[in-house]
């Protein structure tokens, strides 16, 4: 049977940005004095594995739970969403917040 490959080294731009987003989220969590388990509890998750998935740069914070993440990490929700948008959708972030009229 044909086996799937392990993802090669040298991540693409999008993957790299997601990794940076994960590192930023991890930093914010540590500043808030929370473990991955603590954060999962605050978000009402059954397992804390998703926190790890996001912090390792493989998953994204879903839009519908951004506010809950922001409040759990004690970051103003608007600022939190804007910061993550810069990683997840850099072109859109540029259009919304960087391009001058």
């Amino acid at each position, binding site marked *: 049977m044909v086996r799937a*490959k392990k993802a090669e080294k040298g991540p*693409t731009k999008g993957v790299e940005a997601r990794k940076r987003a994960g590192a930023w989220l991890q930093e914010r969590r540590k500043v808030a004095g929370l473990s991955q388990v603590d954060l999962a509890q605050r978000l009402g998750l059954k*397992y804390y594995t998703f926190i790890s998935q996001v912090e390792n740069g493989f998953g994204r914070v879903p839009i519908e739970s951004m506010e809950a993440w922001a409040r759990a990490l004690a970051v103003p929700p608007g600022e939190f969403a804007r910061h993550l948008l810069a990683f997840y959708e850099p072109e859109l972030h540029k259009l919304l917040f960087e391009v001058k009229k």
Partner: protein
Amino acid sequence: MNVIGFPGREAASTEWRADELQQLVALVPPSGCSWQAGKTERGEPQFYVLGPTPEQDCMLCVSRLGQGYVLEDGAGRLIGEAPSLDRFAVEAARAAIRGGRSFVARMLVGWCALRLTVEERLEPVLEQSEEMLVPFAPQLAAFV
């Protein structure tokens, strides 16, 4: 006298075992998908099924927590949980059918279930047929 230190139970549990990894890699659809391994803050191993490049979004994530396994999609939705990887695809398929999971996740779980079924049921049959052919190998070779 030098004493060779065996890795402790905790150290051993932070990595995927070779047999687990083999089972997990077999579950990844070969068309455009890839995988990566990682771990949680506590050291539990995670296995990520990634979508096609360039985005390589996480489509499924398998984590080993204690004695069991947890399956989530890339948005953190719990798809299944099972005590062993053998039962994992069946449990995951049931969970995906019960809940209104994303189409991609359901497709992947279906693929996982199919792969496990093929490996569990078809491969022993093929191995048996090969064993049955072994005694006739010299005669068959004579025909070639």
